[in-house]
């Protein structure tokens, strides 16, 4: 091979490697779950937010991870934890919980906090404590916790041995679930971090890795605008 050909091969290889690196970095930076807006309701000043938690999201790069789906105004489900809400509004949340549960590492998270009346409705029954020890035996699966707004809502799990247990998301209402409803008020515009406080990242140290750390699974942001 002539000197010129070798030099050309080196230059082409160099730019090919650089191009691949740029492509990978840009692709990674652009990877983000979608932001879903809460849908309006018939009551002025109130918007509806409908979500579900699944034991396995069934889609994306980690189909076996636990995660959230958020419903858009057209009824479509999106695997995401980025939610857009209006500022200074009442948010009516309906949350379908499809995952199995267990005891909490810190039982303080069994208390409902920061919602209107400091209660959540578990299958229609108002509760201020979602007691992992005295529930239907399925413990706490996940929690919806927004530190800056003082919100904590624990969710009862469903039996992992239920015949109609949802093994892969997005789940539907014919499968075993707990329905949680609660209301909270958004404050000023801003971005609020939220996460699950039940270490549910199975297979990771202390259960706090993997989905517990990842956007689109068990941690995200409320974008209040």
């Amino acid at each position: 091979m002539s000197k010129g050909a070798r030099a050309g091969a080196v230059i082409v290889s160099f730019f090919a490697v650089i191009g691949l690196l740029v492509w990978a970095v840009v692709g990674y930076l652009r990877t983000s779950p979608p932001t879903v807006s809460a849908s309006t309701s018939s009551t002025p000043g109130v918007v509806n937010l409908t979500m579900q938690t699944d034991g396995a999201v069934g889609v994306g790069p980690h189909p076996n991870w636990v995660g959230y789906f958020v419903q858009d105004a057209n009824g479509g489900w999106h695997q995401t934890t980025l939610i857009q809400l209006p500022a200074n509004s009442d948010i009516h949340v309906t949350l379908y919980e499809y995952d199995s549960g267990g005891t909490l590492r810190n039982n303080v998270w069994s208390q409902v906090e920061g919602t209107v009346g400091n209660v959540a409705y578990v299958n229609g029954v108002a509760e201020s404590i979602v007691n992992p020890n005295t529930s239907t035996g399925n413990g706490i699966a996940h929690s919806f916790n927004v530190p800056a707004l003082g919100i904590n809502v624990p969710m009862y799990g469903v039996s992992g041995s239920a015949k109609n247990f949802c093994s892969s998301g997005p789940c539907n209402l014919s499968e075993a679930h707990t329905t949680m409803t609660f209301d909270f008020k958004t404050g000023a515009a801003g971005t609020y971090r939220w996460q699950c406080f039940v270490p549910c990242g199975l297979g990771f140290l202390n259960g706090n890795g993997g989905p517990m750390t990842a956007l689109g699974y068990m941690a995200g942001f409320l974008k209040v605008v």
Partner: protein
Amino acid sequence: MSKVVLDESRSDESTKGHISKILISWAVASIIGMSLVWFVLGPHLPPGTMTDQAAGQQFDIKFVSTLAVPVLFFVWFFFGYSIMKWRVRPGEDPLAGGANIRGNSKAQGTWYILTTVIVLGMAVYGTYFLVVPAGAGGGEGASPIWTPATKNMLQVQVIAQQWRFTYRWPQFGGMETTSLELPLNTEIQFNVTSLDVIHDFWAYQLGVKADANPDYNNIAFAKTQQTGRFVVRCDELCGIWHGAMYNYGNVVSQSQFQTWATNMEKQNAAVTKLLPKYATTYTPSYSGAGGGYYNTATDPNASL
């Protein structure tokens, strides 16, 4: 190669005259600078005066900053004077050397003694102010040797967990809260621990900073002396949401604190019953969520 020629005319200049000029201008500037740092900048230096520990740290920073002024000015003035006085002027030979360098045992001795006094003095000062104000707000471990004079202290257990702090109050029925309110003019004992990995409780304006280790009680002290808002941050990289692990607290009047604590005790009564009996460390349930990833060899309930 050109030959360097000494400019003998420069060696005729009076050394004493130069030293006097440098010393007088340095002394005047230092007195002004030290006064400005002590009286003007000093009261605004971090971390403020919300607790005795914070005030002590502010005093230390003020003291060291004031001491640094003459040292800094001496370097600046010497260089400034040298540049102005002995620079090469137009028409002079830039390769001509100055006066011959010669030893000066008096200058060297003064330098040795002065730097030794400063360094040793700072060491003594630092050690004294670490010991006297009960550990200077740092975590002293489970058995602190530098403790406040009073034994009547408000106990606050700081429980760090990925990625939030909670607070437990043994003198208020063992309740656990997600917010932190502290009464004015009260000696506080912070018992800092963790539920999972290593965190760090850093209440910046309180002048308190202590590592939070799982299964370990790290004790720090502070006495509140000013009302206001303070921020609590985790200061040990503890995972991907480490940067989001912070909250705000307040130092309030004693009556406001009593009202808050009484209300919280009442509000949290039901969940307090679910908490384990108060202990200086907070060992999570091995069978609890994520518990399967603890070391089962040391799990006391492994056989259950």
